[in-house]
Each structure stands twice: as structure tokens, then as C-alpha cells.
């Protein structure tokens, strides 16, 4: 077990009464509750924690937040394996097992670090210039190796066993950021009477105040405000929660991490995504410190100044004993002060000629060596920094060190405010980008507006908190927050001009982009920041360039001899920090991916050996096991039984629509291609609807129940579309028609009894009803009651047999189904499934989905005759007459009969004329097939070019995927009972 040799005896916000064990690359280490993995690693003296993307350079911990480019680790194993996690954001958990990445065989010795030697060749975009030969396919080979070398962590391939939840939430005001600005904004808004949600990604509130001494004025300010906020029950504090994106409709995407300390409660979500709809949003997201750019600035032991201070004051870790602080601004000096006070030997190298006297005096008091007009030009050391070469007024000199703290100034965190396309605005005095104009309901405060000092942030936050509240109509007086002065002097930052006379000076640490790469991109004309990004991959890593964006574009601005605002930034996109895809899906996984739709007879089907089939979201019986060993055996048996005796089919999935009103008949007359006005009460009619473009939309039957009342059925697939279409026409096109349409699809259980014995079965089942052919002829309808439930019997046939569609109130569906089977047993009534249904309709030549494919017209489907006489004025009538839709060689419906023994037809086979070469698109295709017990061979429906579709002649059906070629004869699509005697007999 390592000792925490860098941990200070006292101070910090860690819970020393709660020691925690974890391991890193198999090595056991200790830390405390309240640590991050990063702070614990530092406490244990681990400086080398990762390898870079391209050159596999050794890397340490740069930051103390989500901007971390280097310290990425993998947690978990198997289904729980999660790569690329910044150690700086991981709340230390007892038993945590972390692995470093992108190295082999080990972090200390990584074979691919030889890439470093090839660095001269691996310049930005080198791969665009080579790997093109010797053959066209060469890239396949090179790519194999390139892919292996690229990528960072390795993901697991097993399913994720954990649970996620997506929530919907609402608030008056959402405040993003729990630093001084956000806290004081929340306090003000709550006091004003608003419902407030405060979002903080860290597991502690306080933001940069957490970098202050844990026993100082900042801490007491924090405690006081936090207590105040907890006293409002209108305030929701969400810690461990990242606002990952702002979306249209003022929807904020939040992802919340489960409290990582302590074991998960069973069934508890690992992460929760919240879709928060807020009336007003306050952004208080702070600022991210910029690195400085000099040779070998990526060595382990180089850290952002504010991060070092955070490790010292928040985590009681002093990451170095011999420290160089280099910065072009006042803020970073406070790191030097605190480190010196903690006992480190500190040198400050400030490029400015004359740093403020007050700072110099304080430094002297603390025994800090101050070097003005001095900057670092190079660093030494491999896996840990050992020393620096500095350049000062009197030339270059060397200095030993084990930690370098740098600050190139700050970049306001304007990611979220840019998500909705509002371009950030350059603010000269802070040399940084702040949010562009806000819409009336959004506000910004504190460092993210460029108002860096805590005192200003607090004042700022209070002001916008009040404004946001009054925007939401809440304006109770809000007392001013107590003051906090950290004695910060925030001077204008002196731009850090990237310099790299020798060695590699990194701008994007993770993507290994150096100043040389930027120069090359510029030289080759990739000088737009967007080209720079795409050519060098700058800012495209897991950190999305949070630290590299500004240094890079200021470097490019310098090369272009233009200004930073002219050069501009790249586009900020969600998510602000990466989000697990599982969290976005929440519980809509596995069976819950899409809801199931079940018919009233569903359980019966399962209990009686049905093999079920997904049809859209519906579950339908495909076939019944007792009918045969497999589907092919079963469907033929079920077909035979329908033709010889009778079958029972669950057709509850049909779309069902109730139409009523004085103008219902007129309406139907317009929406169907065939007429309905003259349909008699008590009769049903098959109808076809067209789209406005004249293509067939859907078919079904509609029954006239009364003068002003109709009952329409649609195909299962189109049910919702048809209803919406009817409503559309009534609401927008013909509002004068007095018609009401309502879906009754769920209202009715529907089943069809088909077969020669169907009437006898109905007679037995409904002794009280008269279902004689006189009372209920073909296409007739009857209404009645069964066991107190409404009952409708329509005499319709899809199979070509005498058949009845029986509709009963859904709650009685399963009872009636069983009752019919009971009554039908003497007549061999057996259930049949979707496969047999399809086969029966093919034998009868009825078109369905495969023929109504969204490209066929009435005439193509042989239904042209439905439009009798000079009928017009129905939907689609005009455009269906377009020349291409009337062309004589259009493919139209024919029947095909296999004329080669032992062979079969297949749907999807392409049709050619005998003797013609099987090439191209053929003259048509087979759409549906079945084995026909009637004909004793395979028959099928096909769409075949009209100019060759003459009955009696032959075609060749080619199916290359099975190397099949079979001859077929063109026949009438109606293979069974063309006169329709069975319907009556």
C-alpha cells in the first residue's frame, strides 16, 4: 500500500474519519472521502497517469475539473467497463479500480511511445498525403493499423447491467453553476419568491471558492449561503449534476451522477437524465484557466495554477515541494502564496516587466523568489518534470523543480450559452469571449461574463437573480448577500504568445497538437479555425478543447496577422461534458424500447401455442404450433382447414374508425376513390383511398350502420395515418362538413370466422341471431348484443371463403373467442395465424402491403374499375392521371403459376421474358407467393410490365441470391373461385 506522502497533516475538505482504499493499475492506494481520484493519486505521489493520443507521451494531471485533457482512466470491468473518465471528476469511491489507458504493456513503459521518434513524419494531416498506393485497396491494410493505434480507452462489448432513468422537470428559474455567482443568484431569486433549481456538476458547492483555504472567509461565506438556501423549500440543489446542453424550447439537459460514495441501493439508477423546462435560465458557469504554451509544457508535474491551489486547499495535497509558478496575471500569484505558506519552495516567473508591487511585497514576505520579465522556454524530465529553462532579462538560466504551475489567463465558460447558436462576443479588457446577446429570459453572471473577482461575481449573481425572478413575475424584496473580499486584483491579462523555439510546445494536450502543427495548417491554407480544427483534430478530444481552444485561435490569429475576434472560435456543441448513451435512453431499453400493443385475445394465443410475431408495435399470432412443426407446414394446414372447414382469426389489430354526421356520406365519397354515397344502410363496401399524388394510400371496408353513421376499417399499419388524414381534411380542407371521426380501434375485439362451415358455426354460437343469407347476405352487416356487450357481424371475406367479421366490446373479446371455438368444435373450427391469412388472400388475389408499396396506382393493382363512370372529385383523382401513371408499360398486377415441377416461386424474384438476358431491373417482380393447396403448386402475385402481361404467356423468375431460375405462367391473380361462389355457397 502506498503512503499518502503528498498529503498535508491538516486542512482541506476531505473527511479524514472516512479513509478509502482504491487501486490504480493494480497498485493499492489510500485516500479519503471527499477526494477525487485525481487528488488521491496526487496524494499518493503518482505523477504519471496517462499517455497521449498520438505520440503516447507521458502525461500527468493538468487540472482539477472537467476540462482535464490528460488524466483519463477506465473504471469497471465487463458490462460495467467505462473508458476515458477524467480522474479529476471522479469522486473517490471505496474499492474503486482504475486503469490508465492508451499504453502497452504498461504506463511506465509504452511501446508506442516510439511514435515520438517518428514525430517529424506524423505531422498534422500526414495521412492525407500518403497510404494511397500501391493498389486501390491499399488503404484497407494501412487503416487496420491506424485504427488500432488511434482511439483512447477500450469499451466493453457486454450489455450494461446498470439502470438509468429519464425524468421530466419544470422550474421558474434554473441556475447553472454553484460558485459564488450562482449561489448568490439562487439566494436572490428564491428570496424574491421564485421556484429555483441550482445545478452544480461538482459534489460540493462553491466553485472556485473551494480553492480558497477551507478555514477562511470564503468558507464561512459559503457555509452561510448554503444554509440560507437550504432554508427555502422552493430551492432544489442538484449536485453531481452537469447541464450538458441547452436546447430549443428552453429545455435544459441535465445528467446526474449517483452519489458515488457508499453502495448503490438495488434498483437505483446509476445516472439520471432530467429534461428541465425552465421559464428563465441564469448561467453562472465560471471560467476555465488557460495553460501556457512552451516547449515540453506537457510534462507530468505541469499544472494549471488554480488547480494546484485547489489540490492544496480543498484536498490538503501539496503536489510539489520545489515549485515554479509562471503566469501573466495576478490571480496565479495566490497559488504561489498558498504553496509557500504550506512550506513549498516557490519561484514566480512573470513575463510582465513590473508585476504589481503589492504582490511582490507579499511574495517577499513569504520568501518567494520573484523573476519579472521572465518566462519558461523549456522543461526537462521524462515521466516527471525535473527542471526548467527560463529566459529572463539577463538571459537564459536553469532551475530545478518538481511542479510547474501555469496560468495563461482565463476563458469564460460560454459553451452552454452558445448551444442555441448565439455566437460569443470578444471582450477586449479580459482578452476572452463572453456570451453574445441573451434573449429576455436568460442571464449570465460572474466569471462566465468576465467578472472574475469573487466579490464581483457575488454582486453580479445577486443582480441577475433578482432580474430573473422578476421576469417570472416574482419580486419580493431580496436582501443583499453578505460581502466577501478575497483581496483579488484582477488585472488585464497579458496575452501569452505561444512560443516554441525548440521541442514540442503543446496546445491541445489530448490530441497532441503542437504549435508546429498550427503553423503547418496555416502554411497549407487550413487557416479558418474550423479548418485548423479539422486538419489538426485540435479540440476534438474528450475535453472538446476546453483548455486549448483559446491558445490555439490566438496562435492562428498571430500567424494570420489578424485579431482574435476576426479569427473567431469554433462552434460549441452539446454535450458540455460527455454523457453515457444509456443515460439518454433511460428505461426505454430491452422490452421497454417501444411499448407492446396486445389484442384482447393475446393471452389466449400464448396459452394455446401461438408463435407470436411483431407487426409494428402489435403482437400477432404468426401460426399455431399444433398446426405443424414449422411455419411452412403450419400455414398450409391452417389454410386447408379454412378452405375445408373453418378457421378463426384474430383481426383486432385492424384500424377502426367511427364516422358520424349529416355529411359523413359526402365525406367518404371524397376520401375514397370509389363511391360511398349510395351505400345502403346495413351494407358494407370495400374501399380504396389514394394520396393526393394519386398513389394508393390504404384499403379497407366501410359499413353503413345508419343514415349518418359509418364504421370504417383500415389496414393495421396505416390506422393512425388514416385517422390523422381524415381529421386533416375535416379541419383544414372541408371544415363545412359536419362529420365527427373517432378511433374505436381499442374499443372492439375483432375476429373473423372463415370457411364453408362458418355460417353453421355462427348459427350455433348466436342462437338468438338470424344469420341466414337473407338476413345477412355477402357484404351485409348486423348489429346485436352478446352477454350485454355490443356486437357487430359483417359478412366480409378476405380469404375467398364464406366469412364473417365479428366485432364485440373489447372486454368480452377473449370470452367470445373461446365461445366461438367451443361452438365451432363440431365443425372443426381452428384458429389460424397471420401467415395463413396472407396465403389465403394471395390465393384469392387480394392485394396487401407488398403490392400497396406506396408506388402503385389503382390501375397497377387492377382496381381501376372501382372508379365507375365519370366519377371524380375524390382525393388523388387529378394527379393519378399524370402521364407516367397512365403509361401502358407500367407494371401491373398479374397472377403467376409455377410451371416447373419441384421448384417454387419466391417473393422478390425479378421477372424476365423467356430468352432475354437476366440483367438490369427486369420487366417486373414477384410481390407475394404461397403454396396453393388448391392448385397443388406455388402461385404468386406479381407486378409485371403491362405491355408483356398477357395471360397464358410465360415469364422467367430469377432469384440470384439463391441462384434460382424458374419458369412461370401468367394467369389471373384470382387463383380461387373466380366467380365467387364460395362466398355464397
Amino acid at each position, binding site marked *: 500500500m502506498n503512503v499518502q506522502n503528498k498529503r498535508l497533516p491538516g486542512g482541506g475538505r476531505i473527511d479524514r474519519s472516512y479513509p478509502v482504499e482504491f487501486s490504480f493499475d493494480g497498485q493499492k492506494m489510500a485516500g479519503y472521502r471527499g477526494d477525487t481520484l485525481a487528488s488521491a493519486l496526487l496524494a499518493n505521489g503518482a505523477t504519471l497517469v496517462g499517455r497521449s493520443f498520438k505520440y503516447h507521451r507521458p502525461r500527468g494531471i493538468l487540472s482539477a475539473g472537467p476540462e482535464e485533457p490528460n488524466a483519463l482512466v477506465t473504471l469497471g470491468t465487463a458490462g460495467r467497463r467505462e473508458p476515458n473518465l477524467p480522474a479529476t471528476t471522479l469522486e473517490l469511491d471505496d474499492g474503486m479500480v482504475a486503469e490508465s489507458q492508451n499504453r502497452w504493456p504498461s504506463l511506465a513503459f509504452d511501446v508506442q511511445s516510439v511514435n515520438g521518434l517518428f514525430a517529424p513524419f506524423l505531422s498534422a494531416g500526414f495521412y492525407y498525403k500518403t497510404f494511397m498506393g500501391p493498389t486501390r485497396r491499399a488503404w484497407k491494410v494501412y487503416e487496420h493499423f491506424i485504427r488500432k493505434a488511434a482511439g483512447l480507452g477500450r469499451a466493453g462489448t457486454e450489455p450494461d447491467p446498470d439502470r438509468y432513468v429519464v425524468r421530466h422537470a419544470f422550474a421558474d428559474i434554473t441556475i447553472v453553476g454553484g460558485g459564488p455567482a450562482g449561489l448568490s443568484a439562487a439566494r436572490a431569486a428564491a428570496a424574491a419568491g421564485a421556484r429555483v433549481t441550482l445545478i452544480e456538476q461538482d459534489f460540493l458547492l462553491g466553485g472556485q471558492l473551494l480553492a480558497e483555504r477551507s478555514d477562511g472567509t470564503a468558507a464561512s461565506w459559503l457555509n452561510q449561503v448554503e444554509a440560507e438556501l437550504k432554508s427555502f423549500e422552493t430551492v432544489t440543489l442538484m449536485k453531481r449534476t452537469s447541464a450538458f446542453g441547452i*436546447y*430549443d*424550447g*428552453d*429545455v435544459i439537459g441535465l445528467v446526474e451522477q449517483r452519489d458515488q460514495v457508499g453502495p448503490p441501493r438495488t434498483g437505483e439508477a446509476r445516472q439520471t437524465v432530467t*429534461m428541465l*423546462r425552465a421559464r428563465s435560465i441564469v448561467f453562472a458557469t465560471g471560467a476555465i484557466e488557460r495553460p501556457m504554451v512552451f516547449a515540453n509544457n506537457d510534462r507530468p508535474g505541469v499544472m494549471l495554477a488554480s488547480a494546484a491551489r485547489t489540490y492544496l486547499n480543498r484536498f490538503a495535497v501539496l503536489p510539489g515541494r520545489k515549485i515554479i509558478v509562471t503566469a501573466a496575471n495576478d490571480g496565479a500569484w495566490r497559488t504561489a502564496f498558498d504553496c509557500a505558506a504550506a512550506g513549498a519552495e516557490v519561484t514566480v516567473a512573470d513575463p510582465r516587466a513590473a508585476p504589481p508591487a503589492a504582490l511582490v511585497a507579499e511574495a517577499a514576505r513569504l520568501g518567494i523568489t520573484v523573476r519579472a520579465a521572465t518566462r519558461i522556454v523549456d522543461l526537462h524530465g521524462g515521466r516527471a518534470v525535473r527542471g526548467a529553462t527560463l529566459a529572463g532579462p539577463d538571459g537564459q538560466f536553469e532551475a530545478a523543480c518538481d511542479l510547474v504551475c501555469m496560468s495563461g489567463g482565463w476563458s469564460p465558460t460560454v459553451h452552454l450559452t452558445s448551444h*442555441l*447558436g448565439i455566437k460569443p462576443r470578444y471582450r477586449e479588457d479580459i482578452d476572452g469571449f463572453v456570451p453574445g446577446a441573451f434573449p429576455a429570459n436568460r442571464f449570465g453572471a460572474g466569471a462566465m461574463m468576465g467578472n472574475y473577482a469573487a466579490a464581483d461575481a457575488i454582486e453580479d449573481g445577486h443582480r441577475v437573480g433578482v432580474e430573473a425572478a422578476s421576469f417570472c413575475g416574482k419580486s419580493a424584496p431580496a436582501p443583499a448577500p453578505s460581502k466577501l473580499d478575497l483581496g483579488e486584483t484582477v488585472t488585464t491579462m497579458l496575452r501569452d504568445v505561444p512560443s516554441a523555439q525548440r521541442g514540442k510546445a503543446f496546445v491541445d494536450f489530448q490530441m497532441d497538437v503542437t504549435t508546429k502543427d498550427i503553423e503547418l495548417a496555416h502554411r497549407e491554407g487550413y487557416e479558418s479555425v474550423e479548418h485548423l480544427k479539422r486538419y489538426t483534430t485540435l479540440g476534438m478530444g474528450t475535453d472538446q478543447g476546453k483548455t486549448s481552444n483559446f491558445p490555439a485561435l490566438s496562435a492562428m490569429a498571430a500567424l494570420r496577422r489578424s485579431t482574435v475576434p476576426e479569427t473567431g472560435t469554433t462552434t460549441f456543441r452539446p454535450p458540455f461534458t460527455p454523457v453515457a448513451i444509456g443515460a439518454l435512453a433511460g428505461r426505454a431499453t430491452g422490452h421497454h424500447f417501444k411499448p407492446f400493443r396486445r389484442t384482447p385475445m393475446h393471452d389466449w394465443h400464448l396459452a394455446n401455442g401461438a408463435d407470436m410475431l411483431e407487426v409494428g408495435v402489435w403482437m400477432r399470432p404468426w401460426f399455431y404450433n399444433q398446426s405443424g412443426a414449422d411455419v411452412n407446414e403450419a400455414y398450409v394446414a391452417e389454410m386447408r382447414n379454412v378452405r375445408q372447414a373453418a378457421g378463426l382469426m384474430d383481426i383486432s389489430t385492424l384500424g377502426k374508425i367511427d364516422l358520424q354526421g349529416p355529411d359523413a356520406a359526402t365525406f367518404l365519397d*371524397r376520401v375514397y376513390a370509389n363511391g360511398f354515397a349510395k351505400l345502403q344502410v346495413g351494407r358494407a363496401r370495400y374501399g380504396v383511398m389514394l394520396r*393526393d*399524388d394519386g398513389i394508393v394510400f390504404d384499403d379497407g371496408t366501410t359499413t353503413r350502420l345508419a343514415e349518418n353513421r359509418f364504421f370504417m376499417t383500415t389496414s393495421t399499419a396505416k390506422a393512425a395515418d388514416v385517422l*390523422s388524414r381524415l*381529421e*386533416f381534411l375535416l*379541419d*383544414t*380542407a*372541408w*371544415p363545412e362538413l359536419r362529420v365527427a371521426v373517432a378511433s374505436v380501434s381499442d374499443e372492439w375485439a375483432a375476429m373473423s370466422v372463415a370457411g364453408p362451415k362458418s355460417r353453421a358455426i355462427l348459427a350455433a354460437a348466436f342462437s338468438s341471431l338470424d344469420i341466414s343469407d337473407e338476413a345477412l347476405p355477402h357484404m351485409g352487416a348486423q348489429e346485436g348484443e352478446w352477454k350485454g356487450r355490443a356486437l357487430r357481424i359483417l359478412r366480409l371475406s378476405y380469404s375467398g371463403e364464406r366469412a364473417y367479421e365479428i366485432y364485440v366490446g373489447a372486454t368480452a373479446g377473449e370470452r367470445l373467442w373461446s365461445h366461438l371455438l367451443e361452438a365451432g368444435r363440431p365443425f372443426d373450427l381452428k384458429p389460424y395465424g397471420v401467415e395463413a391469412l396472407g396465403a389465403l388472400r394471395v390465393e384469392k388475389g387480394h392485394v396487401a402491403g407488398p403490392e400497396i408499396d406506396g408506388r402503385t396506382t389503382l390501375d397497377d393493382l387492377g382496381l381501376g374499375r372501382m372508379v365507375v363512370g365519370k366519377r*371524380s*372529385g*375524390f*382525393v388523388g383523382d*387529378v*394527379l393519378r*392521371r*399524370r402521364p407516367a401513371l397512365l403509361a401502358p408499360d407500367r407494371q401491373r398486377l398479374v397472377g403467376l403459376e409455377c410451371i416447373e415441377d419441384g421448384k417454387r416461386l419466391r417473393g422478390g424474384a425479378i421477372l424476365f421474358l423467356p430468352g432475354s438476358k437476366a440483367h438490369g431491373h427486369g420487366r417486373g417482380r414477384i410481390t407475394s407467393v404461397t403454396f396453393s393447396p388448391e392448385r397443388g403448386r406455388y402461385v404468386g402475385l406479381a407486378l409485371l410490365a403491362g405491355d408483356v402481361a398477357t395471360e397464358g404467356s410465360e415469364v422467367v423468375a430469377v432469384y440470384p441470391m439463391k441462384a434460382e431460375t424458374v419458369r412461370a405462367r401468367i394467369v389471373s391473380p384470382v387463383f380461387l373461385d373466380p366467380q365467387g361462389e364460395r362466398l355464397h355457397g
Partner: protein
Amino acid sequence: MLRIECPCCGPRDHDEFRYGGDASVRRPAHDDPDPEAWYAYVYVRENPAGLHREFWQHVIGCRQWLVVERDTRNHVVSSVTFARTSQA
């Protein structure tokens, strides 16, 4: 999520609605025989980068067809009315 304020149900996520496309095109009378009129109605679109009058049906709600005025550049909704009462 766009938020669309249904005149009778209040503001809702747009996935409660079904999109119906450009509402500025005029549907010819049901018995208008002119192919050009139907061609224009079915196919020709102004497709403005800016204010767009469009149909939405509150299909998982009151089922009313609505006319929404929305800026296609930033999705700001400026008006929502019932299709029945709004004259296109």
C-alpha cells in the same frame, strides 16, 4: 424539444404533435380538375428561411389541427391558432 402552445391544452413538447408541413399552400377545391393547381399544392414549396406557416396536429392531446407560425432559423414560435379558425 420545441415547445408548442396548443390553444386549448397549453404549452407541450413538440413530440405530442404530428407535423403537417407548409400551411400557406392552398388546397384546390375537391372537384378542381386543374392538374397545375394540384401540382402546385402537392409539390411546390416556398421553404422560407424565416417565418413559416405550418400545420401541426396535437395528436397526443386534443387532436386538433393547428397552424403554427415559426421561424425556421431559430424555431421561435410567434403564433398558434386552430386550423379551422385561421384563414390561410
